[in-house]
């Protein structure tokens, strides 16, 4: 204080005696000198307190550390929860994508795991139900289910189950409060919280009743089909509700789990005050306790039963093989029928152990029964119902035409594109008769007999073409006896003309003159032409109505013989006749 008093005294001296403003001013100055720094500090502090921005900056510097210090304080959790919930809600409403992105790595595996577990459980259940749905035991179990009012699945489960851990309780050992509870899919649970508490009470009751130490406790409860195995740790107990007969190894599993729960959640167990949130992360560990084991069917099957089953299997196999083979033969038979001309398969079926085929059949087609043996089918096993029809395939039309027309030996029939063609030599009567008959043949659209030659016409033609009309050397005079030949030819031509007219046909008579090789062509050709004209004149062709006549002289170009003897030369001094039909359109046969 002394240091503060001296400046005041000095300032008072500087003013001098007449300068004094009074004691108040002096006091103010004195106060400023003494507490001035503190006043400035106070003003600065006041300014900081009044400035929200400064406060926010300062709080932000210590906030993370403060939150860390109060991590385990439930009051902080409760205080923050509403704000965080509102913040999350607002964020999701504004844009759910960031939260979805953040959750994706967690949600994806969790969903996959849940789906896999559900599918596995469903498949196991389905498998067991199918496995036991068709056996004689299933019938018995269904009766039991009806009698007891239980579901069939439940009865199957009870009869096939070795054991199944249906529920797992993780309980605070001190208070009996339930920390976590897991159950199998189909397990019935009334109220796990109260069961947990009552279970604790019963344990306490048992321990009190038998005055055992704290370390000793109730480890097993048995109620009907259910067994409760209890494993205790320093702070928590694990109770597993098991249906069936559990193996001893399961006890080791429970012990291992309770130890690991204490290892991983020791702090949370020690400080447990009713908040079960920290124990959510123990669920995967507890899930390992939910084990199940079904019976394996160990019954040895009787050898006789096996033999009977084998025989039945063999019989079934043989029957199946026979059926397949018969079926294959039947199909091949049908294919053959379908490929056969004149047979139309309309339907095929199996009735009363017999094969039945219905269809149409041309009378000229092969008998369907004749196919049976080649396909190793018995007539006793196949019934064919065939309605007759007339097939229009060329082979059938032709065969039918042959049957109806009955062509003589010299006539051939052909059928193509709806046209029936006849060729060869036949009597005029047959030719005339064939026209209406051919039109009546089913499938014949047109009949073409133009290549038919009347046998009488053929005979006269043959005679004419065989006639030897020889001439004296260098003249157009027939050799002795040649006039008789000419006269015969004349008669033949007239007969031919008459026949052609009767048949409505037209012929060409070609008269060709020849000469021997003695003279020069310049004289032989005219000579041969005159010989042809001479014969034409002798044949009186101008009287012919159905025959056209052509004459020509070829000289020695077409000798009958190549010899040089007089007899050979005589043979070459001749006139040859040829007769051939010229077109058919005008013939009455074709009209």
């Amino acid at each position, binding site marked *: 204080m002394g240091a503060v008093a001296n400046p005041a005294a000095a300032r008072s001296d500087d003013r001098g005696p007449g300068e004094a403003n009074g004691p108040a001013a002096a006091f103010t100055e004195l106060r400023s000198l003494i507490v001035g720094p503190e006043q400035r500090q106070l003003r600065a502090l006041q300014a900081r307190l009044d400035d929200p921005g400064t406060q926010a900056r300062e709080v932000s510097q210590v906030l993370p550390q403060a939150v860390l210090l109060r991590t385990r304080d439930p009051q902080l959790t*409760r205080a923050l929860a*509403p704000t965080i919930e509102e913040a999350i809600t607002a964020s999701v409403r504004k844009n759910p994508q960031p939260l979805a992105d953040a959750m994706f790595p967690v949600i994806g595996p969790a969903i996959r795991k849940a789906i896999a577990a559900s599918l596995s459980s469903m498949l196991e259940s389905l498998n067991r139900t199918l496995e036991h749905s068709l056996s004689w035991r299933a019938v018995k179990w269904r009766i039991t289910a009806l009698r007891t009012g239980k579901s069939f699945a439940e009865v199957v489960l009870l009869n096939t189950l070795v054991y199944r851990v249906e529920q797992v309780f993780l309980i*605070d050992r*001190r*208070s*009996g*409060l*339930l920390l976590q509870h897991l159950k199998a899919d189909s397990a019935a649970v*009334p*109220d796990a*919280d*109260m069961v947990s*508490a*009552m279970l604790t*009470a*019963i344990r*306490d*009751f048992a*321990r*009190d009743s038998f005055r055992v130490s704290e370390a000793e406790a109730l480890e097993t409860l048995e109620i009907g089909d259910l067994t409760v195995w209890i494993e205790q740790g320093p702070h928590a107990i694990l109770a597993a509700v098991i249906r069936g007969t559990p193996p001893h190894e399961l006890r080791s599993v429970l012990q291992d789990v309770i130890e690991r729960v204490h290892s991983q959640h020791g702090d949370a167990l020690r400080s447990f*005050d*009713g*908040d*079960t*949130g920290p124990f959510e992360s123990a669920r995967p560990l507890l899930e390992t306790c939910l084990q199940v084991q079904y019976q394996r069917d160990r019954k040895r099957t009787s050898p006789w039963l096996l033999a009977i089953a084998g025989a039945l299997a063999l019989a079934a196999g043989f029957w199946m093989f026979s059926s397949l083979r018969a079926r294959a033969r039947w199909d091949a038979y049908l294919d053959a029928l379908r490929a056969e001309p004149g047979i139309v398969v309309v339907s095929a079926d199996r009735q009363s152990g017999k094969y039945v085929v219905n269809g149409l059949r041309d009378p000229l087609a092969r008998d369907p029964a004749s196919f049976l043996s080649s396909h190793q089918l018995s007539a006793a096993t196949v019934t064919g119902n065939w309605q007759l029809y007339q097939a229009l395939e060329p082979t059938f039309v032709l065969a039918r035409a042959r049957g109806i027309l009955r062509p003589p030996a010299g006539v051939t029939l052909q059928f193509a594109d709806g046209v029936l063609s006849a060729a060869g030599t036949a009597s005029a009567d047959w030719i005339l008769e064939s026209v209406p008959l051919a039109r009546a043949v089913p499938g014949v659209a047109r009949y073409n007999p133009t290549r038919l030659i009347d046998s009488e016409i053929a005979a006269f033609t043959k005679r004419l073409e065989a006639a030897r009309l020889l001439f004296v050397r260098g003249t157009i005079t027939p050799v002795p006896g040649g006039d008789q030949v000419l006269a015969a030819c004349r008669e033949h031509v007239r007969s031919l003309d008459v026949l052609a007219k009767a048949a409505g046909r037209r012929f060409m008579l070609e008269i060709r003159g020849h000469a021997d090789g003695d003279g020069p062509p310049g004289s032989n050709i005219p000579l041969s032409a005159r010989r042809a004209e001479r014969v034409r004149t002798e044949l009186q062709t101008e009287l012919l109505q159905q025959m056209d006549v052509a004459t020509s002289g070829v000289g020695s170009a077409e000798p009958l013989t190549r010899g040089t003897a007089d007899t050979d030369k005589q043979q070459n001094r001749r006139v040859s006749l040829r007769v051939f039909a010229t077109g058919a359109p005008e013939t009455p046969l074709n009209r």
Partner: protein
Amino acid sequence: MIQKKVCMLGGFGVGKTSLVSRFVSSIFSDKYLTTVGVKVDKKTVPVEGEEVTLLLWDLYGQDEFQTVRTSYLRGASGYLLVVDGTRPLTLDTAVSLQQTAEQVVGQVPFLIVLNKADLEADWQVDDRALWRIAEKGWPILRTSAKTGDGVEEAFLKLARGILAA
């Protein structure tokens, strides 16, 4: 989720089970009281915007033949000491049980519940005795399991006290 264990203490016939029955619906039969000596029920109540599940351990009433199993008290976050207003001796029993409970669970919230308030004409608990209790700082509440008066309030008050502790 917050869970708390609450014990119902009191002499025989003071109405503990009736109070609980008024408060919750149970899944366990009352026969457990006479066999195991306790019956557990559950009630979820809202306390300051938070759901709190009370596991109510209804202990068999103490009388001259049977004492409360102290093992049932372990881990309790609070308890109700139920007194029958028509039977003064049940107040003494409650005081005795408070000492027992405090030995087991320590100083946790509790409440003296003067039950059977509907039988005011037959009321026999001395006010001076109640003053002595009040002087200890023990909260006292009148209830009637028959009419339901004060029952909900008693449990809510205890729950609030437990969360505030």
